[in-house]
């Protein structure tokens, strides 16, 4: 079963939920941090990183010895990543989406592909928990291809928890698509509600069942609860504002370690999620 933890609004507690859920479950769980722009889960899980892999995306390289300056590559490129200027062909690798169109269209086979570095993927673990995250190279604009690489570490039959980035555009879609359940973490404020509605819209487009976690549940107003009721969205967990939780978080401490009574609550959250998906049991006893 794959559970994506998403939110719309940033800073609502996605990483707290994803990491504590994974750690409560114990061994035999895969945690994927798909917030490759600003990955944070490792700060709490503190995995032993065993492998680091540089991830590249293909971009064109032109052999000017073969090029006849016909311009077909520039014509097919939708992203202005290759242009013919005078007697030469210029490529702009940072604009390239790696579609391979220029290479496919070139009648002289003058284009081959080289790599643009997107970032790295780091793999590791802690106490039977498998951990993978992506780190986007600073200056790189495109995160979805790196997110898709992180998601290659999902394993069928194994509980996989995905920490998604904030927002509702392509990086979030890349993180949620194909998961069995989306857990939306929100806060009961106007910003939280507004962005939750967008996130629910995205989850609906993908056709994935979802449920809510309301964090700092006593700090705002009742509109998120009213919205949930209207939409028939189940509130699967509420976490009240507690300065001890905020301070533990600030130091990188896990909620279930500092306040062990929370472990039961995370396990029952997991049970509630399982009840709502077609994957009744990934593990028979906790």
């Amino acid at each position, binding site marked *: 079963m794959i559970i994506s933890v998403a939110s*719309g*609004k*940033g*800073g*609502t507690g996605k*990483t707290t939920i994803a990491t504590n859920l994974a750690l409560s479950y114990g061994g035999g769980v895969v945690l994927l941090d798909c917030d490759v*722009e*600003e990955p*944070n889960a490792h*700060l*709490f899980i503190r995995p032993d990183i065993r492998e680091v892999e540089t991830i590249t995306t293909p971009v064109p390289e032109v052999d000017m010895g073969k090029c006849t300056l016909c311009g077909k590559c520039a014509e*097919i490129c*939708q*992203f202005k990543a290759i242009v013919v200027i005078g007697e030469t062909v210029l490529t702009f690798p940072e604009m390239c*989406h*790696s*579609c*391979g*169109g220029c290479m*496919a*269209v070139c009648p002289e086979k003058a284009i081959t592909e080289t790599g643009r570095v997107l970032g790295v993927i780091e793999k590791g673990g802690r106490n039977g928990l498998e951990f993978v995250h992506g780190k*986007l190279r*600073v*200056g*790189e*604009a*495109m*995160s979805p291809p790196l997110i898709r690489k992180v998601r290659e570490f999902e394993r069928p039959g194994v509980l996989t928890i995905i920490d998604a*980035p*904030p*927002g*509702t*555009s*392509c*990086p979030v*879609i890349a993180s949620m*698509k194909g998961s069995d359940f989306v857990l939306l973490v929100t806060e009961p*404020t*106007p*910003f939280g509600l*507004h*962005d939750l509605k*967008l996130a629910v*819209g*995205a989850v609906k*487009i*993908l056709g994935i069942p979802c449920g809510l976690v309301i964090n700092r549940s006593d*700090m*705002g*107003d009742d509109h998120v609860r009213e919205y949930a009721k209207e939409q028939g969205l189940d509130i699967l967990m509420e976490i009240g504002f507690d*300065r001890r939780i*905020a*301070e533990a*978080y*600030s*130091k*990188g401490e896990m909620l279930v370690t500092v306040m062990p009574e929370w472990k039961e609550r995370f396990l029952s959250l997991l049970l509630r999620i399982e009840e709502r998906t077609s994957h009744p049991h990934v593990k028979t006893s906790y």
Partner: protein
Amino acid sequence: MSKRLTKKEKNMKELVVISGKGGTGKTSLLAAFASLAADKVLCDADVDAADLHLIMNPRIRERHDFEAGHRASILQDKCIQCGLCRDLCRWGAISETFVVDSIACEGCGVCYYFCPEKAIDFSLNNCGEWFISDTRFGPMAHARLGIAEENSGKLVTRIRQEGKKLAEQNNLDLLLTDGPPGIGCPVIASMGGATAVLIVSEPTISGRHDMERVAELAAFFKIPTMVCINKFDLNPDQGQLMEAFAKKKNIAVMGRIPFDPVFTRAMVRGKTIFEFDGHSDGSRAVEKIWRDLAQRLELHNTDTKA
């Protein structure tokens, strides 16, 4: 592309508020600055999850469709199912029954270009809307990216251009831009050519990690950078480490904002913190930060409503 700058454009300043980590208080702080700054245009460049309008309550004056990029779809009556498009598509966006998954489609047009039967429609994609509005703090440019859409970077660029136009038309010389979280495409689009960026962070291990990455991004694009730490008292040790990092990187440390429920309470009522309670600890800290910022950006005058 490189048109000559008018005198007004030369004098125009743009402050972009970013954060790396989401939820550190960018929008609340920007709204608070709107209460204090004179002669400005507001710009919400967090088009993916835009929230500034919830405080600004804009009266929309103009509404425009935002079209960018294309999407492929297969015309079933023309398609002979030769499979060439499926072989060429690197996004796995074309199903075995030759239907394009519009979410997976990258808009590269390779299928459209190669289809021997011209059976692929490749139309402009409407990916959102942008607005020109009036608010109680002056004009505002904002947008709504369609859910699950791409091209947020292009929409960010568009909004900032419209903001600049608004400033010019209204003879205003400051753009206050609410930026997106992260370090990817929309953030890069939000900071290019800005006078300065202000990173709003929080004294947590994640806040610090993310601030360091977004500061590196601003340095990469050579944008003058300032930082301020919200909820400072939550973890002063962490906060001091962050300020030390900033100093080492020649990033101006603009001040500390205490943890203050006034931010949430004001937001719930759709107000800036100054409209809600100008005398709270949080408001006083923000007022001082704004005064120093205005001086640093050499803004000629600011309101002192608070």
